[in-house]
């Protein structure tokens, strides 16, 4: 293709893009409604008001930064880039510090705390975790997005992700219906392992931060070795 032709195509493409209608009125409308909802909850249920506001901010952040947890796992395998994976690791490092402070406030002074008192996501680990993770990993790659990415794309107007969401709902309802089978097979005999309970609070924190930092450096190295975009 001659460069003239390319220029012509570029101009034509720009013409197609330019007459984009401003959606700012809709922005103000949706923004106003969201604000009203936050305000309404402020007077009825403060917790809901906080959750609502944080959810909106998560949506904006993920949309603006094109954040996608599925891609953070897929890209290193398919194209060799780890920038998204490293961003997730940075997030994990920061939340590890934040979560550890909150957990320490809650249980730091209790000698014999029960696992139910520890705030956060603490659940049994075993073969069910492995099976669930593999199923989830396959699913998110072939569907082109995980749970959070699906929500973001629905907000952006993708009909496809509504289908993914319907599939997700069907799958999760089926699985909860079959839960007794899986529980008796694996879960009920599995242990819940809260790492600080076994090695102490500060060693757990130090080891975890070291592990995450090492993972970050490894990912950085891997990117330099495998990134097929780097040479282009």
């Amino acid at each position, binding site marked *: 293709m001659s460069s003239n032709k390319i220029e012509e195509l570029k101009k034509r493409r720009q013409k197609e893009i330019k007459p984009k209608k401003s959606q700012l009125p809709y922005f103000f409308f949706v923004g106003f409604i969201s604000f009203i909802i936050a305000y309404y909850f402020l007077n009825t249920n403060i917790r809901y008001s906080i*959750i609502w506001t944080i959810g909106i901010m998560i*949506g904006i952040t993920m949309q603006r*930064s094109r954040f996608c947890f599925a891609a953070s796992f897929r890209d290193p395998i398919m194209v060799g880039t780890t920038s998204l994976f490293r961003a997730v690791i940075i997030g994990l490092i920061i939340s590890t510090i934040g979560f550890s402070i909150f957990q320490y406030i809650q249980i730091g002074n209790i000698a014999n705390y029960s696992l139910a008192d520890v705030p956060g996501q603490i*659940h049994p680990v075993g073969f069910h*975790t492995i099976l669930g993770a593999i199923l989830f990993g396959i699913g998110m790659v072939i569907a082109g997005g995980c749970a959070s990415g699906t929500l973001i794309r629905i907000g952006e107007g993708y009909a496809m992700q509504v289908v993914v969401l319907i599939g997700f709902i069907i799958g999760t*309802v089926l699985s909860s219906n079959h839960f007794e089978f899986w529980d008796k097979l694996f879960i009920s005999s599995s242990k819940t392992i809260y790492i600080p309970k076994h090695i102490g609070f500060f060693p757990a924190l130090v080891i975890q931060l070291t592990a995450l930092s090492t993972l970050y450096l490894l990912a950085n190295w891997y990117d330099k070795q495998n990134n097929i975009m780097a040479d282009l």
Partner: protein
Amino acid sequence: MNLKSKINNKPWPYWVGGIILAILNIILLFTTGSAWRISTSFLYAGVGILHKLGINVEDWYYFNVYNNGLDSGQTYFNNNIMLISVAIIIGALISVLFFSEFKFKNIKNKKQLFFGLAGGILMGYGTRLSFGCNIGAYFSAIPSFSLHGWVFGAFMFVGAWIGSKILFKYIL
């Protein structure tokens, strides 16, 4: 329009997203006592519909073990997890509308439809086994110092690898 030109239209770098998401998750934990989760909201949506259709989902084994039931005063459609998932969709919508980038995008073909649905079902099925998706069982679980978060992360990689093979073979 001045407002628009003041704020850069370009996407934020990934690491900025990672930092903000971590901070929001920490604020969520400090203010509500529980970390960010998503997939359970999809379960609630599903069983909420079944419940409306007259099926006694509360009797299911799942809802009677491991604190899987709802908190008192909450329903399948009115709870913390459902609220945050709806808010995330609205947040993304607000974000695209601000830059006038909202566009309804239809499904491309039957193949995409099939893999989208199949992928969704696989993901959904996996989440009950692993107690969450890559938010609840990974992004919120590793910072909670629960070993299952690390195991989930490692084996999600295995799954993603298998998924990539399928993608190369049948979709691309």
